[in-house]
């Protein structure tokens, strides 16, 4: 009898635990809000503004998904994650979606059991140095002291780059952007290295940005994108196609301003009609309302609008489109057909 009580309890606890990981879409809809993992504060990508509202390029993905799934771009709980806590947060179900400048790598996709659903920013690792240092190339950095965020792919790229080029360096590991700022501005490290987009973004927040410059070398491929847990393909599809909807919207000239008008009745372009739900049943296929893409675009604008508003050349961060232009303009952003 004792034994059966024990086993019964164990089994009951087990069923309760197993049920938790099923359909993320149902969980999000039941909860009425999306738990989205973002950075701890990188201006332009994810940072709270003066009113405490999260703003940024990665934040826009969270809001677009919330708008597509729940119809409300503000139904998002933003959860700050560091380079060290982000994967545990996603794997354990604390967040439904991680949109946090995370590099898509083989081992993260396979060994860590995540699914990268898209690449929203094609990046590469770079270096920032004080102009006064008189360095013009990363190849002159032999013996330098380098600040590096721990737990990132940049740490491994840096080790590889210096080993391959037969140079030595002194790594100063740091945990977050704030610490990097303190150390780099105090001159405790000569160089700060991370993704070039992040470097450009933090440079504008330095007291005198002109005293610092980015070195020309890009030492790695850093395809950054949103990711979800492995094994829930329906949820992965929703995030992936919400993102593609934003890219397609830019290609077909659907903007935050004209989306409501274009969605009222079918227009000339059949693909836009399918995207906005005036033709066909794409929304039902993905398990959402027919206005899912319209909601997402109305909430945050198309990919180009998100880019220029948060990190583009008109914004404080001032990044070029470069690789992140549409494929029609020589970039890599490409949405498969909505059909």
């Amino acid at each position, binding site marked *: 009898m*004792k034994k059966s*009580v*024990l086993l019964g*309890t*164990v*089994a009951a*606890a*087990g069923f309760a*635990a*197993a049920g*938790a*990981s099923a359909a993320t879409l149902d969980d999000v809809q039941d909860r009425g809000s999306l738990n989205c993992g973002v950075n701890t504060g990188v201006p332009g990508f994810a940072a709270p503004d003066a009113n405490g509202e999260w703003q940024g390029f990665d934040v826009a993905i969270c809001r677009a998904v919330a708008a597509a799934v729940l119809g409300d771009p503000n139904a998002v709980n933003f959860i700050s994650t560091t*380079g*060290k806590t982000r*994967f*545990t947060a996603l*794997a*354990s*179900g604390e967040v439904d979606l991680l949109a946090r400048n995370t590099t898509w790598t083989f*081992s*993260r996709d396979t*060994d*860590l*059991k995540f699914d990268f659903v898209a690449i929203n920013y094609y990046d590469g690792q770079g270096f920032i140095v004080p102009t006064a*240092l008189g360095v013009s190339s990363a190849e002159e*950095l*032999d*013996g*330098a*002291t380098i600040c590096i965020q*721990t*737990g990132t792919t940049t*740490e*491994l790229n*840096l*080790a*590889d780059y*210096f*080993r391959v080029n037969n140079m030595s*360096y*002194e*790594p*100063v*590991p*740091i*945990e977050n952007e704030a*610490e990097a700022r*303190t*150390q780099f501005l*105090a*001159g*405790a*490290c*000569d160089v700060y290295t991370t993704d070039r987009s992040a470097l450009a973004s933090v440079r504008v927040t330095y007291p005198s940005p002109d005293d610092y410059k980015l070195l020309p070398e890009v030492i790695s491929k850093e395809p950054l994108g949103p990711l979800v*847990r*492995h*094994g829930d393909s329906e949820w992965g599809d929703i995030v992936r196609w919400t993102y593609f909807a934003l890219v397609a919207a830019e290609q077909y000239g659907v903007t935050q301003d004209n989306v409501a008008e274009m969605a009222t009745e079918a227009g000339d372009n059949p693909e836009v009609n399918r995207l906005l739900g005036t033709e066909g049943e794409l929304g039902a296929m993905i398990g959402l309302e027919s206005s899912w893409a319209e909601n997402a675009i109305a909430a945050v604008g198309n990919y180009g609008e998100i880019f220029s508003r948060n990190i583009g050349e008109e914004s404080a961060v001032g990044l070029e489109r470069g690789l992140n232009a549409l494929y029609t303009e020589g970039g890599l952003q490409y949405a498969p057909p909505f059909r």
Partner: protein
Amino acid sequence: MTTLSDPPHADGFRLSLLVRDKRYRSYTFQAIALIALFVFFGWLASNAIRNPVLQQAGIDFGFLADPAGYDINQQPIPYTSQSSHLRASFIGAINTLIVAFLACVTATVFGVFAGVLRLSNNWIVGKLMALYVEMFRNIPVLIWILIIFTISANVLPQPSAFRGDDPEASPILGVAALTNRGFYLPRPYFTNGIGAVPDDVPADGGAPVAQEVASIANWLIVLAVFAASFLAVRGVNAWATKRQNATGRRPSTFWTNLGLWFVPIILTLLILGLRWEVPELRGFNFQGGILARNSLIALWFALSIYTGAFIAENVRAGILAISRGQTEAAAALGLRPGRVMSLVVLPQALRIIIPPLISQYLNITKNTSLAIAVGYMDLTGTLGGITLNQTGRALECVLLLMAFYLVFSLVISAVMNAYNASVALKER
């Protein structure tokens, strides 16, 4: 007549006896508690097994043999980014022990001084020490670590400040440079002794240059000489005590002891050809010498000064626990205050001080895990930080981390308990 336990009933065993009968009752409740404990752990285990993360990845320690891929700045043993995760973990473990050892020593020194001085009759000294204790033990140690680190990073000059014909900063005595990246100190090395290599004669016929001896055996020789000096000094002291007991007069041993300490070691160092490598500014940083990194210094100093405040209170408690009559009796015998403290009060107080001191040493060792706040690569930084993150093997890394800290703590505890047993009051 009443008895404590009822005599066994002849009519056999009934189920209600399990609760009613004193002979069985305790077993019943213990069995229930045991079952509850098993169910609880069973629930924990089943929860872990059914955890989606574990179900997908399983438990596998194979990653420890893979190349780590990242660099570590403070390397007590040789390491490159191609070494294994296991080696990186060991580097972290050694770094943890280094800072824990240094902090235990200095915290004890701070603590004993502050504890004794807080009882001083001098009002200012007493209040200053009270201020120290209350200030440092009432602010979290992480804040102290960050404060000290930030101050040293911003106040001390950068290495580039030492450059140029008219530099803003210059090394202390020309040999030790204090920078905001760390303290660059001269490094001693030997040019003779075991494993000596012939002098390098320059091709242009200049004076021969003595080459460094790589063998660590020479340092063991130095240690052996120290140990011999220590034993000799102990011998002299024992002889002096014996004379004192026999004749009532203690022979002066000061100069003999001083000689025994210094003459052999100076001779040894001369024979081994001691030289100093002075750090020089080359490129971005000082090269050569020993680098005590900013992160090590901040962590070491913060842990010592924080834990020193707690130890000071232990010391004060130990001293106050010795009856005032002891001090007065010693004074009546004509002992000076310093000798009263060192010969009468402290030896007795030690018995009270040491048990809580063990806890403080364990606290220091565990608090070193805050090292990542300043980028010191301790065990939590390597195994529990970068390795965990790069491999994604969270459960395995945390289990290993727990095992490492448990072993450290148990060893410290065992050593200190043995010491405690040796100074404890011997009851016969």
